């Protein structure tokens, strides 16, 4: 509850509010957030304010634990990738995309199974996101959202590598979908900046030429 101009309001979505007003409330300063989910709140608040301002979204508040910061960002990425997956489900059929590929260089094996499997692209996408959801919510590896176990920090890199392939498959095989989605969310751009900034993936593996394209994506779409 916050007092603003003498009237009390709550940052909550009452049933019946319109899609436009969903989560539309005045920003709360990060210092004033006392919830255990403060980092998620803050990240989502920044994204809502301006999804294209990637650098600001990735700018960590002072005195913030970096592992938690990375972890919460990765959660947000996986969550927003559901949006891309929904679009891919309509177009990426297992008959056409029998394997998870981007450029012809690599075929990615799906690690969600006991023995890695050559899943069709759409299955790879879903399995990878489902697996990431389980891992990032696992009580074993990430029991807390306010402090991350030292031993689990490495998991963030492997999750990043796997989910990045969803971007690359969409970019190289379903370009229209990719561009539509990217224009709305700037997600691949943010993701690329994120993994680069925190050194979660090697430069060579970032095969979607998103950073160089800066400013040109819109005209292409």
């Amino acid at each position, binding site marked *: 509850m916050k007092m603003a101009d003498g009237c009390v309001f709550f940052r909550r979505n009452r049933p019946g509010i319109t899609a436009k007003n969903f989560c539309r409330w005045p920003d709360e300063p990060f210092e004033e957030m006392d*919830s255990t989910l403060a980092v998620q709140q803050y990240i989502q608040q920044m994204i809502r304010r301006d999804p294209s301002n990637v650098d600001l979204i990735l700018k960590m508040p002072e005195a913030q634990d970096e592992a938690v910061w990375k972890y919460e960002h990765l959660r947000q990425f996986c969550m927003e990738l559901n949006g891309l997956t929904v679009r891919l489900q309509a177009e990426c059929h297992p008959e056409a995309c029998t394997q998870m590929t981007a450029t012809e260089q690599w075929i990615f094996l799906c690690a969600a199974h006991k023995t890695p499997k050559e899943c069709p692209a759409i299955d790879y996408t879903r399995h990878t996101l489902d697996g990431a959801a389980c891992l990032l*919510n696992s009580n074993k590896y990430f029991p807390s959202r306010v402090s991350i176990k030292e031993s689990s920090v490495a998991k963030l890199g492997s999750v990043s590598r796997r989910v990045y392939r969803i971007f690359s498959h969409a970019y190289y095989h379903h370009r229209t979908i990719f561009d539509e989605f990217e224009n709305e969310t700037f997600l691949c751009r943010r993701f690329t900046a994120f993994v680069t900034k925190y050194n979660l993936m090697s430069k060579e593996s970032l095969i979607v030429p998103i950073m160089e394209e800066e400013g040109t994506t819109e005209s292409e779409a």
Partner: protein
Amino acid sequence: MKVPSQFCGSTMEENSSSASQNHNGQLSSGANVPLTNNKHQGNDNGTNGDAKNERPQYSMPGILHFIQHEWTRFELERSQWELDKAEFQARIAFLQGERKGQERLKNDLVRRIKMLEYALKQERARYHKLKYGTDLVIQGDTKPPIYEEGICNCPNSDVGGGGDGEAPFTSVSNISWRQGRQILRQYLQEIGYTDTIIDVRSSRVRSLLGLSNNTDSEDMNTPALNGNEPSNKQASENSVRRIPGKKQPSSIAEAIILDTEAAVMANFEFLAHTDMDMEEEEGDVEDDTYDTNMDPKPNKPSMLLTEDVDAEAEEVLNELNLLTEIEESPPGSIRYSSEWSAIRRGGHPDPKRLNEEGDSALELGELEQLCVNNEAETSYDMVATTKESLRKTWNAKYTLRSHFDAVRALVFHPTDPVLITASDDHTLKLWNLHKTLPAKKSASLDVEPLYTFRSHTGPVLCLAMCSTGSQCYSGGLDGMIHCWTLPSANIDPYDSYEPSVLSQTLKGHTNAVWGLSMYQLRSQLLSFSADGTVKLWSPQSKSPLLHTYISEQDGIPTSVDFIRDESNKLVVAYDRACVVFDTETGESVARLEANETKGVNRVVAHPTLPLVVAAHEDRHIRFYDHRSATLAHAMVAHLDAVTSLAVDPHGLYLLSGSHDCSIRLWNMDNKTCVQEITAHRKKFDESILDVAFHPSRPFIASAGADALAKVYV
């Protein structure tokens, strides 16, 4: 039910009189205010709805409901007693087994001591002979000790004299425990195999307990040689105290056997109703400690629990688990393992009983209480008190973690231990409560989702389930209502994508769909949206949209439900009032409002009574009679906005969730809070977003803004 007819008579009388008293009380205190619905003349009970008209309220359905209600209550209590009884009987048998094991071990040790003693004597004699050249004359026997297994019934006669006899035995109590369990395991196996041949089983039990020739109850109670003694004794005492109520068995042993049989039978019955199984029960104990650690404001039951008890219980459960694994093939043994879980279950609902393995003093108290309860069976007046003492306490057991953002809604499968959650992360997830991840000690059981439904392009806000559990419906911020065909509850979570899971999409709303309600009998679905409309759908038919309801003066709805006792009506909540519509004509037939009403977040109709319950932003829960359009009761229910409501299938309890982070269970009858559980954390100013009762199993669930859903048993 075996309630004598005179009981039924008195029950009716008691309660109808007390009901009318209640009624009068409400009138005089002015809570039963006629509301401002005077404009709606179509309503029978319209303008003159004052005290006189109200008094003769005994309608046939009302009385029937009351009888039904009482009957279910009695049934509930009865099954509770049976559970408790079975539990204690099982415990007696268990302790008997333990004791037997210890006795064996002790005998074994005694034998070794005697051997050593003998060897020492021999050695001394030899030494003496060497030194003095003469034979040592020893008083007493020089024969090697003869040990006969199975004869030794009285532990004291062997070691009794030796003061140091006790020390070694206590030090090896661990091994003896294990042996005891071994024996218990054997014993249970026997029961499982021969559940038709009672005689054989009795003799088995008898021989296993080593009581074949034993009629002396004192002998039974001979103190065992380790710390387990007090509870052992109590258990026996308890059985003694129960016997008078039954036919008189000739010995304690027989009584125990008879009781065990009865308990086993009772449990078979119980299983037929509830179909419990091992997986459901495992985590009971662990959960509580988990909650103690995690919750800033832990609920009382969890405080009583100690780590030791936890470890103990877990060990026993593992033992039983192991047993099921070993004995997978014969059906009998599987059944018995579920019995055991059922027995355990009986113990857990009462928080005090959690201490049973740790605190023998407390246990005595419990046993005494149990005896009192048994006596109460004969006197109606006692029923109220027993109800209090045997009331179920819910504990968080399963944590459903896999969503990335707030869980907005959840819905249970009509029959299976399966539920679906819907989240701000754009997905729905399917969970099978039997598919839990192996949890480490003192953590609640984590469930891994079986299937993720993706098709909404924004947060998913509401859910409904069809009567068979084959279809479920979800409404989203994207204005879509999707109809999903549920995958099998045993699907591989990483199976290939099957587009046909999304069987249909109901289009019509032009803005966020915030609520769904299912009328199972007609397979009709209600939805309401931020576009201001309420729509009635028949999802299976060719043109699914049946009707649209709008109330111009009220604006955008905030909740919707079918009126369950009059199937041609539905109730829609608006910011200022709840409006009852006729489903056919689409006209509003009643307005439910109180002067101070503000912001209804959820409205639900009682399954059998003409009662509508509304959860308000102003922390109130209000109960309306939708026929007379009167406010029946209003109460401040939470510390913050009440967001969600659910009524149990029998209409006896109400569950509410609030942004104050807690869920509360209410007695529908007297509107008292039965239990409060702190369940979720806050994200911004939101905390609990939905609650639910399982339609046919003892589960309740809550969904939180913290991306978790929890299931309580």
